[in-house]
């Protein structure tokens, strides 16, 4: 049963008033709100067994370790991995990409080879690859977009060759909303070069759609907890067992070792090899609780609600004069995000005026400068939707935009 009003009861922030008015939160693409179940799970760790893991033989530490490892199983199951050793906990999606770029890239990428990304990526899936390519004197190529913001897949065969070592692409665009046909794309890439690895940025996919790593065929998948009801500071790098197994450590120190001597060290096995130091234990338990919450709702229901609300929003916003909406036309072809511009109004000004009614949208380039350059716009506004958003909130957004138009545009 998917009941938005009931879901809203679970989110403490939604039930508070700010300056006497309710919050209209339309920026879940940046970070989702947190239900009390997740907040309690984090608190419970600190209140009941808040000690370090893997270290003590005393029972509190054993309990903490058990819960931490149970969280890994829960997360693995959620993304369709049958082997929880494939789940590496990181701080966020960005750190997960950096781990892959740094560890895999340093050890495997060679001068004269190339990597491929796309113009619709979040900076997190561009900059780490730029760095490693610069270091290794490798080439970084980009898949362009066509028309309404779909990837230009006709040119794949020109971009990918026998020297393409990895393709880093997003599952769902955090600006255009485009849901890329990643399974087909991965198939196509692998048929051109079976050795090319694929890193899928699923930061906007895992919170919103059923993602199944076994089915997709990617080699790495990254996502962040804070966009899927979980706390900040916890993210995931999922990698195929064999691929992770062959990668050197990313950071070194405690937890990631098996034996240390003064002159050499034997590393721990995966995933611990990639989790140096005391991890974000509370955040990990919060993530597991967030997964429980989403699983309880059912990812199909989550997705259906999103389609319904985005469809409504596309309609309502589409009625506003002088608005340009970016990305695919149909709600079914997009995630929970709508980027737009209103003629004559700078996104910062629109966002600021909406804020006077507690309507939170994002303005700027949303960590996707290359995409904005490609669209030939300096910035955009972005409203995004999640499980707790209602049609009424869409109406408030539409009214707010019209109010901003009145304030900011002149007749002369």
């Amino acid at each position, binding site marked *: 049963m998917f009941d938005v009003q009931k879901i809203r009861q679970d989110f403490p922030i939604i039930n508070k008033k700010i300056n006497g008015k309710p919050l209209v939160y339309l920026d879940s693409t940046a970070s989702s709100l947190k239900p009390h179940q997740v907040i309690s799970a984090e608190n419970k760790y600190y209140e009941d067994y808040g000690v370090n893991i893997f270290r003590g033989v005393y029972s509190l530490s054993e309990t903490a370790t058990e819960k931490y490892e149970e969280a890994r199983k829960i997360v693995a199951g959620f993304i369709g991995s049958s082997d929880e050793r494939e789940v590496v906990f990181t701080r966020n999606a960005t750190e997960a990409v950096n781990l892959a770029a740094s560890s895999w890239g340093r050890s495997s990428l060679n001068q004269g080879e190339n990597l491929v990304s796309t113009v619709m990526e979040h900076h997190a899936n561009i900059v780490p690859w730029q760095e490693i390519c610069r270091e290794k004197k490798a080439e970084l190529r980009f898949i362009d977009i066509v028309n309404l913001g779909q990837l230009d897949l006709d040119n794949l065969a020109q971009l990918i060759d026998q020297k393409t070592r990895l393709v880093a692409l997003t599952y769902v665009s955090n600006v255009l909303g485009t849901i890329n046909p990643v399974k087909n794309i991965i198939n196509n890439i692998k048929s051109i070069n079976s050795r090319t690895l694929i890193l899928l940025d699923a930061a906007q996919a895992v919170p919103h759609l059923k993602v199944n790593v076994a089915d997709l065929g990617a080699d790495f998948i990254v996502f962040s907890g804070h966009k899927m009801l979980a706390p900040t500071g916890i993210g995931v790098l999922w990698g195929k067992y064999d691929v992770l197994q062959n990668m050197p450590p990313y950071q070194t120190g405690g937890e990631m070792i098996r034996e240390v001597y003064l002159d050499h060290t034997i590393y721990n096995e995966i995933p611990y090899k990639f989790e140096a130091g005391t991890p974000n234990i509370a955040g990990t338990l919060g993530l597991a609780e967030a997964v429980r919450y989403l699983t309880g709702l059912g990812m199909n229901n989550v997705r259906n609600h999103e389609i319904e609300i985005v469809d409504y929003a596309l309609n309502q916003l589409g009625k506003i004069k002088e608005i340009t909406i970016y990305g695919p036309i149909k709600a079914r072809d997009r995630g929970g995000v709508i980027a737009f511009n209103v003629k004559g109004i700078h996104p910062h*000004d629109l966002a600021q005026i909406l804020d006077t009614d507690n309507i939170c949208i994002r303005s700027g380039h949303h960590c996707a400068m290359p995409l904005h350059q490609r669209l030939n716009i*300096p*910035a*955009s506004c972005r409203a995004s939707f999640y499980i707790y958003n209602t049609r009424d909130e869409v109406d408030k957004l539409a009214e707010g935009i019209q109010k901003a138009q009145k304030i*900011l545009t002149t007749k002369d």
Partner: protein
Amino acid sequence: MDLYRDFILTHYHHPHNFGHLSDPDIDDKKGNPFCGDQISVTIKLTSNKKKVEKINFEGTGCAISIASASLLTDYVTGKDIISIMDLKKEKVIELLGITLSPTRLKCALLPLETIQVSLLSHLR
């Protein structure tokens, strides 16, 4: 709403010194992009090259950055380069006459930074 009072909106809709000088001593083509605001300036100096005789700005920006550019270009016209280099954020806030959150302060300060950077490259 305080931020968008008439004074600011008038400067936004009808900015002073907007355009491109035809024969500038300083032509900062690159501009200074920040989060979707992009402002560039052309400056004509006095014959002794010590003062700003004329300054124009162009680009796109939010109401705050455009109003700030409009007010600031008025303010620096006729002023010594050295004294312009000394201008601080307080002056911009004073000219605008509004209180700004840290994020919007960046918008307001963009024109000052742009002017100072282009003057600096001239001094070098």
